[in-house]
């Protein structure tokens, strides 16, 4: 029996709970259903992750986005505070902002806010979302001002951008496809805005359609190829593994979501119903396979050798002292399957770029039952750069057939 059977049980359980909640609200108060739908959409749209500063008040904004070539953007305060938040906005203003990127006063939003994707939601859905958002605690937080390079410092430039790359709109179901596929398309292309991270950008920073979902570098990390390509995409995953990964952030043999993807799980995907997760899987499976040049190296089968790690390299020594407390010598995870790193793509892909960043900065994932599984970051103290590259090289060569390069790892350390 899979170690995840209990997680699956929970998953089904919470799906039922959502249904039960919806029906009971229906009978209680009419607008409870609206709120429940709004909350579900807000989760599916991952609003909280971006509109919350690290360690800050939820939805009060202030999280920094480093947009290469453009500057630093800060997310806005979307709590119902009338002065610092969006309490005074009308529903129409809100909808326009979310779907078209135009805030009250004709302020054109920058596309760190994925309004082209959100445009896939209908105005009615966005209104529901707004209704729920109006119930979160107010905050008087004022996010820092954006620091943008010319010409991006002129918001009106976005008018031109929008003409090129701009808002799409909600689309009718494709009758040739299943209802599940259509639901999946809505979630992936719309609120889920998966392409915003996983599709390469065009010269004008629009999303590439020809290489859609074939991987991209964002926030200093690699968002991997999620097309069904067998070697560089998710073609080798089973449906079950993919669903499990999206719902829980982990699938044995594929590792655990980290960094930004861990946030997507934490704030968004873990709240979705099993049906919606299945729908997303169905749609992703049907994408056009696109090969990319970042296929991971094959994993090695670790013979656990009674839990011994060779101690003849510095990386090996550091691994058993700093890492094996969670990951175990054979990488199978000590106290929780979330620490099972076997088969994780980061161990071998992109010259260890994501791996060393996560070792440096750490990662945190909240699972379905609300438990948080965190990995601390190891940069900024007693572990030197050399220590960190040595650990990374060890992990890559011990668990996979990758051939890490010191230069690439050093470059990744300086990225961001």
């Amino acid at each position, binding site marked *: 029996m899979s170690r995840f059977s209990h997680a699956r049980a929970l998953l089904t359980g919470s799906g039922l709970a959502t249904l039960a909640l919806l029906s009971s609200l229906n009978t209680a108060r009419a607008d409870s259903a609206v709120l429940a739908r709004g909350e579900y959409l807000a989760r599916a749209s991952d609003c909280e992750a971006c509109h919350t500063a690290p360690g800050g008040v939820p939805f009060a904004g202030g999280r920094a986005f480093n947009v290469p070539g453009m500057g630093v953007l800060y997310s806005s305060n979307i709590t119902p505070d009338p002065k610092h938040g969006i309490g005074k906005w009308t529903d129409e203003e809100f909808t326009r902002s979310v779907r078209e990127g135009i805030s009250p006063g004709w302020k054109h939003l920058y596309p760190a806010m994925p309004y082209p994707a959100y445009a896939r939601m209908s105005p009615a859905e966005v209104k529901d979302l707004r209704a729920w958002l109006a119930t979160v605690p107010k905050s008087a937080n004022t996010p820092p001002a954006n620091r943008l390079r010319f010409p991006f410092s002129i918001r009106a430039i976005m008018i031109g951008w929008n003409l090129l790359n701009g808002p799409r709109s909600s689309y009718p179901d494709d009758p040739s496809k299943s209802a599940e596929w259509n639901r999946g398309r809505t979630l992936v292309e719309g609120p889920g805005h998966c392409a915003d991270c996983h599709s390469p950008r065009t010269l004008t920073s629009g999303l590439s359609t020809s290489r859609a979902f074939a991987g991209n570098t964002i926030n200093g990390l690699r968002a991997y190829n999620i097309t069904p390509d067998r070697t560089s995409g998710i073609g080798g995953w089973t449906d079950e593994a993919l669903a499990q990964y999206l719902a829980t952030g982990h699938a044995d043999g594929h590792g655990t979501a980290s960094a930004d993807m861990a946030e997507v799980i934490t704030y968004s995907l873990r709240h979705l119903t099993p049906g919606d997760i299945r729908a997303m899987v169905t749609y992703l499976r049907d994408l056009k396979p696109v090969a990319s040049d970042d296929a991971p190296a094959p994993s090695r089968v670790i013979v656990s050798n009674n839990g011994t790690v060779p101690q003849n390299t510095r990386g090996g020594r550091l691994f058993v*002292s700093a890492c094996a407390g969670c990951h175990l010598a054979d990488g199978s995870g000590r106290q929780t399957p979330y620490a099972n790193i076997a088969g994780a793509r980061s161990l071998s892909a992109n010259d260890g770029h994501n791996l060393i960043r996560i070792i440096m900065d750490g990662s945190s994932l909240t699972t379905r039952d609300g438990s948080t599984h965190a990995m601390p970051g190891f940069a*900024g*103290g*007693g572990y030197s750069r050399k220590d960190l590259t040595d650990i990374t090289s060890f992990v890559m060569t011990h668990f996979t057939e990758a051939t890490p390069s010191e230069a690439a790892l050093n470059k990744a350390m300086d990225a961001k």
Partner: protein
Amino acid sequence: MTQNAPNRGPHTGRRGLLLGGGGLLLATLWPVKGLRADAGMLVEDSTAPFAPNAYIRITPDNRITLILPNIEMGQGIYTSSVMLIAEELGVDLNQIEMEAAPPGGGAEITGGSMSIMTEWKPLREAGAAARTVLVQAAAKRWNAKPESCTVESGTIRHLSGLRLTFGAVASDAAKLPLPKEPQLKSAAQYRLIGKPQHRLDSVVKVEGRAVFGIDVQIPGQKIGTVAASPVIGGTLKDFNRDAAMAVPGVVAVLVTDAKDAVCVVGDHYWAAHKGLMALHPEWNEGENAKVTTQTVYDQLHDGLKGPAIVPTSKGDAPAIIAKSHAHYSAVYQQPLLAHSTMEPINCTAHVRPDGCDVWTGTQVADRARDTAAEITGLPKEKIAVHSQYIGGGFGRRLEHEYITQCVQFAKQVPYPLKIVWSREEDITRDRYRPAYVDEVTAGLDEKGHVTAMTHRVVGPAVVARWDPPELTKEGYDEDLSVGTLITPYNYPAYRLEFARREAPGVITAWWRGVGGTRGLFVVEGFIDELAGRAGVDPVAYRREMVKDNPRALAVLDRVAKEAGWNTPLPQGRARGVALQFAFGSYMATVAEIEMPENNVVIIHRVTAAVDCGQVVNPDQVISQIEGGLIFGFSAALYSEITLKDGWVEQKNFNTWRVMRMNEAPRRIDVHLMESSEDPGGIGEVGTAAAAPALANAMAAAQGHRYRTLPLLSPRNLEKEAAK
């Protein structure tokens, strides 16, 4: 043997509590720094203004209990103190029970490697005095002469074969006058002292039954966790009380009067912790938000110029240096260091209108009581401090600010409140071993021998805050002399200078040997540099300098022999030596290392020769040296507290790195010298040796020297890369 009897109830009427009905209660003054060590001993009901703090209790049922104020924090002190008393009393170790004494007898301080040094004589005298009256009582009963009686294993025997247990005569003995100068055994008569004895606290610790401060369970207690201002001097600006109270299991949010810390209280730690996360405290950070690590180092380097105190000098060292054949200077720099004892900071307090109980691990029980009295407004007699096992002291528990903090929170609630700091709080709100910059200059003759030495220390005077009267009237902290002025060397001329600079934005404190670790890294590194300049082997160079100091010479020769100093090394290995006289003990250390790559250090073997006078429990001395060395290596290689915008950057063991088993030396050989001198300290001796021995070995391996700690800091490594 009961080792696990933290005293629990408030103590009222010392004699009643300690003795109950019948038997002998012999009180003595546990000698402590600053008090006369020979203050003698009195029975409890004496009228003298004397507050005893240690007791030998023998009850008619023949139970022998030692009630000692000293705190066990790993150094094996329970065992060695008991050995001293038992030796003279004439009982076996397994006949003794232990209790922690209530505070009340002077400044109870466990620190500065002082314990055995100060206890050595008085505890043996206490044991001997008790034995004397017990024998007299028995002899009286038999109508015999005391000289015709012998004592063994708590039993008094007469030549005729008659026997009585201690318990049987305890009540009689209590009525006899104590001898003025009890007869002590000669070293040749020792049955216990100098023979390895197993630690008396092993069993409870191995079985997980030892009660540390953090383990105290008082009926009805709640558990709180704390966020203090991350910048010293900051105050609370805002927090979300409602969000914290909404966390299941959270029962209260408490703020100190000064608004410098907030505590979330819950049914258990996790509830409190989650509550604190939800609370989102924000701070007015104040002035110190400007402080960075560089601010601290800049002001220290600045202190190398300009005026300084001269606490001691011999001859006109600067003039001699100026006239010497050559002179040579070097500047050394050392960082702020956290303690990170394995047991995070914690304290439990129950404040009631009529009294207050405090349960905690502390090296300063009296200060704990005084602070509780001050904060509650209760008289000192109404405060009971219950000392618990300490999960690592290293000087951290010489501070009592966490006790103050706990009582401030606890007085706001009716239940016993245990506060437990997260490791992040423990590291970022520690009181740090200070950062220092030292400049040493030597005048040298043609052969490269020292003609005169000047040494300027720039840094804080820890004692000025911790015990102000101990600061000399010129403003000098004498702790800084350890390893600096107090060395095995006798320079022809010497001048010590101290430029006091208190680091902004942090509070500095004792650490496992502040003066000793700081001083030795500088002096022993510098001596090695001088040997190198003179083209003389570092051991030979030191031999010449200590040729008139037999104890120093003996440890140096012994370590050279045991470490095979003059034997060839395998390819890629190097050795470094350090010699010291600190905390009353001599030690010489050789570290044998390998540097397979630049900046990769493997410590293969450490050899030490130690002369700490007469040894009470030899294997525990060895254990302290082993542990002290590893503590010191850990700091020397990895440790530096850094500040950014007033915040401490290292938070937990992911960034505050501690040496692990696979990095520790595979072999540490400690050789104890035969000695009839009075015992010296041992707890900090190994720590002080670690950095210089290692730095000297690394200099030998790399051909150049790091004068800045930690040895593997980015600062040093970048210099390395630039070469």
